[in-house]
Every structure is written in C-alpha cells, then in structure tokens.
C-alpha cells in the first residue's frame, strides 16, 4: 500500500511534468470541445448542441488519456528501458501497473471535471443530473480503454512509431463512433464499422447518462460490449506485454 501510494504520486508528477504528453492527451479534447462547441449550433439528439458535444468529447477524452496516452507512455518507457530498470527494484510489477492505471484514471477524472466546468462557463451546459452514474461511466470507460491501451502497447514495436500508430487508430475511431458529433448522416457502411468499435458504446453510455438522465445500470448492452473490449485488451496485454526493449 505504501509502495502503491508512492508510485501513484510519482506517476502524477511524471504526467503533469511532461508538458507535451499532457497537452496532447489532456488539453486536446478540451480544445476540441471549445472549438466544435463554437461552430455547432441548434439541437442534437433533442438537446442543445454544446451538451451533446460535451457528452461525446467526454468519451473522446477517455480514448485520448486512457488509451492513446497510456499506450504511448508504456511503449516509450519500455523502449527507454525505464520499465526494465524498475524491474530491478523492489517495486512489484503488479503494484507498478496498478499505480499507472490509477494515475491514468485520476487524470481522466480531472479531465471530466474540467470539461464540465468549461462547458458551464463557456456554453452554459448543466452539471450532470445523475452524477453517481456519470462517475461509473468514467471509471468503466477508463478501465476498459486502459486495458486496451496496455494491450496495444505490446503490439507496437518502436517508440518513434507509437504516436503515429495510436493516432491512426484513435482519430478514425472517434470520427466513426460519434465522438466528434453525430453519425446519423454517415453512409451505412461507415456506421456499421463504427458500431463495432468500443468508443461507440462509451459515447452511447455518456449520452444516455448525461443527456437523457438514465441510470448507468440500465445500459446493459453498452456495459457488456465495453467490458468485452476491455477483456480483449487484458488478453492481448497478457500475451504481448513486454518489460524490456526489443533487442537491438
């Protein structure tokens, strides 16, 4: 427990110190929210556009922080042999992974709080009515996407390529699943692809809880699909995750 808290503090320090990563994963969804929110007007899904965007970008923020940010961080640390060095210390590997995941969830929680404060200040969006359910959405999303992020890190071979690979996955996924705005007018085949991707179900969950005031537990399908994708992430991670850089 002492080691867990120590490492959690260290991970927070490392995350907020590294400006590039923090800007890329933390600020970018907030920036998109303000930009898109200024462009879209009228109503989406029967609510003001800015509210719908907030719900969608909450899901996008999760993909950025827990999936993109975490997998790039892990690849870079692996290739820089930081993970290898930590293995020589008494810090147990499960404690390390748990601290890193907790730190990621904390960052995403902070992101969500800022998103709501920003929405309130700039567009007058309301705070969530079902706050408890929204916290569950945030935690489920962060855990599932973090599991996929750890899995993805095992599939990426080099540190230089990691950012490109991850963006190639996250940006089209966000576009196809409605994280940048509704997909109703997309061609059928694009929507079909989007329906297979995990982010779709986090957007659905976020919409249901924030926009339509439904309870988290009423969204069985979305929870099931997200959990299944999370399990895939855990499976890939167990098979492919490595602590040491690839042999030169």
């Amino acid at each position, binding site marked *: 427990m002492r080691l867990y808290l120590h490492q959690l503090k260290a991970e927070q320090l*490392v995350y907020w110190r*590294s400006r590039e990563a923090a800007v890329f994963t933390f600020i970018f969804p907030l920036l998109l929210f303000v930009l898109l929110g200024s462009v879209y007007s009228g109503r989406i899904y029967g609510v003001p556009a800015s509210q719908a965007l907030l719900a969608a970008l909450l899901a996008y923020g999760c993909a950025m922080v827990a999936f993109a940010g975490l997998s790039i961080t892990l690849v870079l640390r692996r290739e*820089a*042999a930081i993970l*290898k*060095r930590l293995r*020589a210390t*008494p810090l147990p590997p499960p404690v390390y992974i748990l601290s890193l995941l907790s730190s990621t969830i904390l960052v995403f929680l902070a992101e969500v709080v800022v998103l709501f404060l920003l929405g309130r200040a700039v567009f007058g969006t309301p705070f969530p009515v079902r706050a408890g359910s929204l916290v569950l959405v945030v935690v489920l999303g962060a855990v599932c996407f973090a599991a996929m992020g750890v899995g993805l890190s095992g599939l990426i071979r080099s540190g230089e390529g990691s950012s490109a690979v991850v963006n190639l996955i996250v940006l089209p996924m966000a576009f196809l699943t409605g994280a940048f705005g509704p997909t109703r007018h997309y061609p059928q085949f694009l929507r079909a692809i989007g329906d297979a991707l995990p982010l779709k179900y986090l957007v659905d969950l976020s919409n249901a809880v924030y926009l339509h005031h439904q309870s988290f537990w009423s969204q069985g399908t979305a929870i099931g699909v997200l959990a299944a994708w999370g399990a895939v992430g855990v499976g890939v991670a167990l098979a492919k995750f490595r602590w040491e850089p690839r042999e030169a």
Partner: protein
Amino acid sequence: MSAISVRGLRKSYGPLEAVRGVDFEIEEGEVFGLLGPNGAGKTTTVEILEGYRRRDAGDVSVLGWDPQRPGREFRQRIGVVLQQAQLWPNLTVRETHAVFAGYYERPRDVDEVIDLVGLTEKRDARVKTLSGGQKRRLDLGVALVGDPDLVFLDEPTTGFDPAARRAAWEMIRSLRSLGKTVLLTTHYLDEAEQLADRVAVLREGRIVRIGTPRELTTTDAEVEIRYRRNGEEVLVRTSEPTRVLHELTAEAIGRGEELDRLEVRRPTLEEVYLALMDDGQ
C-alpha cells in the same frame, strides 16, 4: 561467504550459444571485472545474475539467492546500472532519486547519494538537461539509493570522453571504500586493470583467463627480450627470462660485446588480452 557463485552457467538464444559453461566466484567486498569484446556473453551473464534472464543450465547463487527464484529481500540488496536505460526526462535529479528511494525499505539519504555521485550542483536540474556523463552518474545514484550490498555495472563508461571516464572511475573506486561488492563488465582493458581486484576474460561465452590484473600478465606470459646485433633487431620470447638473460649477457661479455639497446619487458595486459582474443581465431 561468496557474494556471487556461478558454476557451469549456460545460456542459448535459439541456435546461438551466448554462454557456454562459465564458472566464477566473487567474494564480498570484491570488485570483479568481466572483460571481453562485444558478443562475448558479458551482458547475458550479468542479466542472468540480476534475475532478468533464465539460465539453461548451471548453478547460480547471488547473495545466497537463486536469481530465478529471488526472495523478497533480493531486490532490496542489489543495485543495477544497465547498459542503456533512460529515466523520466522531466523530473529533477533529486526527484528521480526520491522516487527510487521510495522503493526500498532502508534507503540512504537522498542528498547524501546525490553528493556521493557528484551531482549536488545539478540537484534541481531536469534530467533531460544533463550531459551524458552526468546521466551516467544519475544511473549510479539511483542504483545506490537503496543502499545495496551488491552493485552491477554493465559497461559503465562506454561512449565516455577520457575526462568523464576518469570521473566515473573515481566513483567506482569510492564504491569499494563503501564496502560494496561490485560486478563490472567492460570491453576496455585499462578499465578492468584500473578498477577490478580480479578479472575474468570472456571470449565466445567461455572464460579464457581469470585472476588479478597482475596475475593475468605474469602467469605463463612470456617475457620479451630485445637487443640489436649487427644492426638487426633480435627478439627472444621466454618464460625463463633470468636464465636466458644470464646466458645472453655471459656470451656477450665473453665476446667483449655490448648488447645494443637491450630491453626486457613484460607484455602489458593489453597485449595478453589481444593474444587471448586472437587465439584460435
């Protein structure tokens, strides 16, 4: 009791036999050098002792543990400096030491360690602003902050300029005065000669010679006697220099000649080493 004991160690990567039956013992408080060219099996050997790799065969004991099944205490008592490993670029020197100190039950005082590795002036500098030599000192600092009994140094000065190497040597000597056992790998001969109490020369996965740097240059190493006769250089290699020299000088005196440019020298460790490396190649 020995700090490290290795018997019949073997390790292959696919068809490549990296380590082919290595034996050595390292006493507590000893600085032991594994010397050899790239690909000789130094890093593989050290990484087996550190617990990173599994061996194919042989018995290994490190501070009484089998590194493949280490007890909880094992990692409290070893410090590892890897050949190439970075740290978080945006933390300061002090923060980095503090993060590592937190992993150990009985860490040394962080500022004391920073002082020991000579980074006091850089204490609040970000890691990414350090020079190569300073980063290497940071590597040593975080390996020492847990107050280990045994320190592994894998090629600690590779890529250093001469001044940085001398500074690193000073630091490694200071480990000895702290009573640490040190296992050092290097492909620099002078480094092994300068730092190690004993050296094992590794070639193609086998130890071809083991002993103190002095022993390596004396045991059955032949002494060279050179002189000039009628303007031509004569070179005699012998393992009995006293007898040969006596005969040569007696003969010369008998002829009333001077042995021009007479020189008697023992080969340097470098020459012994190169001869070992050339052997059978």
